[in-house]
């Protein structure tokens, strides 16, 4: 198969899954610098306080990050000066139950389930979440996150402080 053909081909579920697992692995390893490069320029990273609002921009979220805020957030978490992330909690997460909700020549949209366990100071906490991803293919063929929405199972209820990325 020629390179040109491959670059315009639809993104398969297998490719998307591989991409999402690699992203999850970066996050569990707190490897935030390469994570920042996984995004499109206009990409949005959203963790809402309510399920499925009409427009996330018009409501209060836990996280509503554009590129500038993602970079500031990663810098903060890695700085060593934020006591909620230094020392950091340990996390182990898996993402599964993928369903393709839309796809086209250069994009795929999925929903999925994330199961995350967090451990710090003797506390073990579980943060299950419904996930939505929009993944696009860049001109050079690589996949990029264009939107990632993490709706915690208890999004509208109380959380404990979260000193890492979901």
């Amino acid at each position, binding site marked *: 198969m020629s390179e040109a053909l491959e670059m315009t081909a639809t993104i398969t579920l297998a490719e998307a899954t591989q991409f999402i697992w690699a992203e999850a692995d970066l996050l569990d390893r707190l490897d935030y610098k390469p994570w920042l490069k996984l995004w499109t320029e206009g990409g949005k990273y959203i963790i809402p306080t309510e399920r499925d609002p009409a427009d996330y921009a018009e409501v*209060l979220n836990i996280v509503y990050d554009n590129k500038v805020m993602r970079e500031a957030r990663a*810098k903060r978490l890695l700085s060593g000066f934020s006591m*909620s992330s230094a020392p950091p909690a340990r996390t182990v997460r898996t993402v599964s139950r993928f369903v393709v909700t839309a796809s086209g020549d250069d994009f795929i949209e999925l929903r999925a389930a994330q199961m995350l366990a967090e451990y710090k100071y003797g506390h073990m906490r579980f943060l299950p979440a419904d996930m939505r991803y929009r993944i696009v293919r860049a001109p050079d063929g690589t996949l990029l996150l264009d939107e990632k929405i993490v709706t915690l199972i208890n999004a509208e209820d109380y959380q404990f*402080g979260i000193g890492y990325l979901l």
Partner: protein
Amino acid sequence: MSDHDYATLVREDRVHTSLYRDGTIFDEEMDRIFKNTWVWVAHESDVPVKNSFKTSWVGREPVIVTRDREMKVNVLLNRCRHRAASVCEKKKGKASVFVCPYHGWSYDPDGTLRKVPHAAGYPEDFDKSEFPLISLRVETYQGMIFATFNNDIEPLVDYLGPARKWMDLFMKQGAGYGVKTLGEHKFRFPGNWKIQLENTTDAYHFPIVHKTFLDSLDAETENVFDVLGQGGWVEDLGNGHSVMVMIPDLIDLEDNLDAPIPDRFAELAQELRDEGHDDATVRKVVRAVGGSGFNLNLFPNVACSMAFFRVLRPVTVEETEIMHVAIGMDGGPAAGNRERLRLHEHFQGPMGFGTPDDAEGWERVQRGAHAGEDLWIMLNRGVDAPAGVAEPGHNAGDVSAETGMRAAYQQWKRMMTA
């Protein structure tokens, strides 16, 4: 524990560590404080129209805040008068009737018992009027709704006293449109509620705990948040209330309207101009958008904290729930409220650039408080407030003084020994 014992646990400059970890004291606090004073339950914009409601808490007791057909605000215990089931488990919404899911007793939004299914099974003298939802005494000031179990205490306005002036100032961030709630972050920390009560009047921790927040700001804004370096102060307002002024320039948001627009709000100002707002409106909205330059701590459970309401709820002696309520303009330009939401998300909430570090700090206080048998929490910090800033006759200290904490604990002592 006797009144005398409680009196010995709070001194002028320190409180005993058992106040953070003794379950018996906690139970007494819920009784002597939370059932005997004005407790914040909601903002009027949470129940904007008739038949709207919001569930809330007074101490450990679940309540429903309702707006009835006459537009009156009611605070009702969320408990069916028959066999105790809660009658509402939604956070907010609209309802013209609350129906108990267990046996179907139904109540009006003012608490009146409307209907009892299969009423023939009760004796003839059964009187529905004897079984309304229990209604608490309710009073409001500046849109803030407070309730109390105690019918004998002073009116709310008297309880607030000099704090009212600061509530009036705080609400100017509605930029003339009035204030409404925009959403809330909720989080818990494993620690006593008074650790959080102290924190709202603690400027001392800000540059240390919130270094990474400060590092995320542009240079101009970082200067605005140099909270220890602007001649601020902490002032005891009586009844356990206090104000901590960190940014004196932002006390009155209707002052200095012709000052240059800060760079970080230049884009917002342009958006507002493009929408056709005149220069005066643009300046008013922009000046108000970042909030007020002070934290007003209202004993025992709410603060008007710069740009939001901070509400605490004691859960157990070692667990506390905090709600950060985002506020904005009621009917003002949408762009201004969007900016307020993004600013709120930047610092507040379980993944904000500020809150998780606060929560971690409070957890560390609780963990450390388990060490040592007879040690004290020191509240002796402070030098004189700058001359002439505080109201004559009010006890006041410099911005990083622990004056506000001492004020709250003296109120604690008065209530626990009353």
